[in-house]
């Protein structure tokens, strides 16, 4: 397997604050990778750097062997790196169907510009309907997106990212704001839909149950650094990760406390 997305020494400072320091990770093609870390650990900053929304202070980003540092997010999307958002970024006044058609239409307009466009000869209107079914959003087809319940908004946001034909999809906290008993169903649905197209996935998550269940590999961030990178079970067992990310104090400390 080869790395589809790689960052080398990625650093980002905002004035005196360092949001990302020397982040070097490589994501292999056709895998599902998790990214965990507390608030302010630099997870979203990392996604923003990789997708071109932020320019790194130093370091480089590589996609498929190409240096894409400093490339506009619009072009990065067209290369095949797409993302969803922690707070769903949807077109509120458009219907659910139209929301998907925006992305599918963009792909249809620039068939050549999209790497790996597998829209084929299908009409975007038709594909939008199929995607709505696949994401269980069919019942909301003609409703304005502004009336969707939170879980549906999340689903739509992810479906929109998938509509623009990614090779790697970056999901920013797909289950945040979703109730505890819905989150597994949501992740099953999302990952089935995404993996059916063999899209590589990197997702940011706070929920360790989700991470344990859906990822083979896990990255842990703390204070803008990568503190662990490896098999999910190993990373979750790592003492530093347990202390700084998961929030369970290490065994000896627990004894010392009280």
């Amino acid at each position, binding site marked *: 397997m080869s790395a589809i997305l790689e960052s080398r020494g990625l650093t980002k400072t905002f004035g005196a604050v360092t949001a990302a320091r020397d982040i070097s990770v490589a994501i292999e093609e056709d895998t599902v990778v998790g990214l965990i870390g507390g608030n302010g650990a630099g997870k979203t900053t990392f996604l923003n750097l990789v*997708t071109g929304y932020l320019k790194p202070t130093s370091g480089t980003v590589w996609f498929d062997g190409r240096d894409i540092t400093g490339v*506009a*997010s*619009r*072009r990065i*999307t*067209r290369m095949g790196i*797409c*993302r969803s958002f922690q707070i769903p*970024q*949807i*077109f*509120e*006044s*458009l219907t659910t169907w*139209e929301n998907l*058609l*925006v*992305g599918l*239409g*963009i*792909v*249809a*307009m*620039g068939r050549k*510009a*999209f790497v790996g466009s597998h829209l084929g000869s299908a009409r*975007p209107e038709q594909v939008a309907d199929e995607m709505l079914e696949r994401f269980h959003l069919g019942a909301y087809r003609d409703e304005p997106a502004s009336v969707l319940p939170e879980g549906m908004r999340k689903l739509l946001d992810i479906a*929109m*990212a998938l*509509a*623009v034909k990614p090779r790697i999809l970056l999901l920013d906290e797909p289950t945040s704001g979703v109730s505890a008993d819905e989150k597994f169903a949501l992740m099953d649905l999302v990952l089935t839909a995404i993996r059916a197209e063999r899209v590589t996935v990197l997702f940011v998550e706070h929920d360790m149950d989700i991470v344990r269940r859906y990822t083979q590999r896990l990255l842990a961030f703390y204070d803008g650094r990568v503190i662990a990178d490896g098999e999910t079970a190993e990373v979750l067992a790592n003492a530093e990760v347990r202390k700084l990310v998961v929030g369970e104090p290490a065994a000896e400390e627990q004894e010392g406390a009280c």
Partner: protein
Amino acid sequence: MIGSRRNFVGLGIALLALGLAAPLMPRWLLSLVTIALGQGLVALGLLLLMRAGLVSFGQGLYFATGAYAVGLASERLGLKDAALQVLLGGLAAAAMAAVLGLLLARYRAIFFAMLSLAFSMILYGILVKSAALGSTDGFGVTVHSVFGLDAREGLGRYGVYGLSALSAFAAAVGIDRFLGSYLGRLGPAVRDNELRVEYMGASVHGVVYVNLVLAAGLAGVGGALTALEVGHIDPEMAYWTTSGEFVFVAILSGTSSVAAPFLGAFLLVLLRSYAKQHAPNTWQLVMGATMLAVILFLPEGLWSIFRSRKRRAA
């Protein structure tokens, strides 16, 4: 629904009705309808911009550009046919927007509105100072022929009216198709969430630019038709109150149908004529009260009357 066959048929019927009604209408009404169609074209351009979340207080710039292009084509270039003059008017205005749009497309909200207003006032200033173009008096425009028909006799007397109806029909059909196209759909998407549009792989700047140029082209055609109908051109066409009237029509009409701006423009022209006649000193008061009523009771414009009835029926 936008872009549907039903809309095309509906607009075709409207065109046919305009054609059949022509011999029955008195001269003053014919003129009023022509002026309204010209205004409606400008408002249709504003509809495009408003769907993309932008309001321009400077459409007078393109309106005047179209009008002056007609005048100059007739006086200086020897281009005598009205149909060609109108085409030239639209192209001249679109070309103007193609240049100014490079800057304008970067701005949003009040900054976009004010910058477009500023550009229109610059043109106004230039026109007022241009002695060769008649300064504040402007100059007269004569219609020689329309589609090769002599404008002084027979069918030719309906030439400018017919040309306006055809232009309005072509523009409405074209814009309706555009709004239903993938590119056209990006306008409302930009209004809702620019960040997401960029993250879907499209250029927000590009979308705004295309809508700007189209809107300017429509305003240019509207200005050209108005110049031919009125027979006179002056710098007032670029003045901000003219632009304000277009915004008035656009808000009156709403953005849900391409036919709405024409209806809105016709109502404005009627309202203004009667208000000026019956309340010569306070007619602006009547206009303001109308605007207030529309904003309060029909926030989505006049066209929402038809829509809400349909929804209740369904």
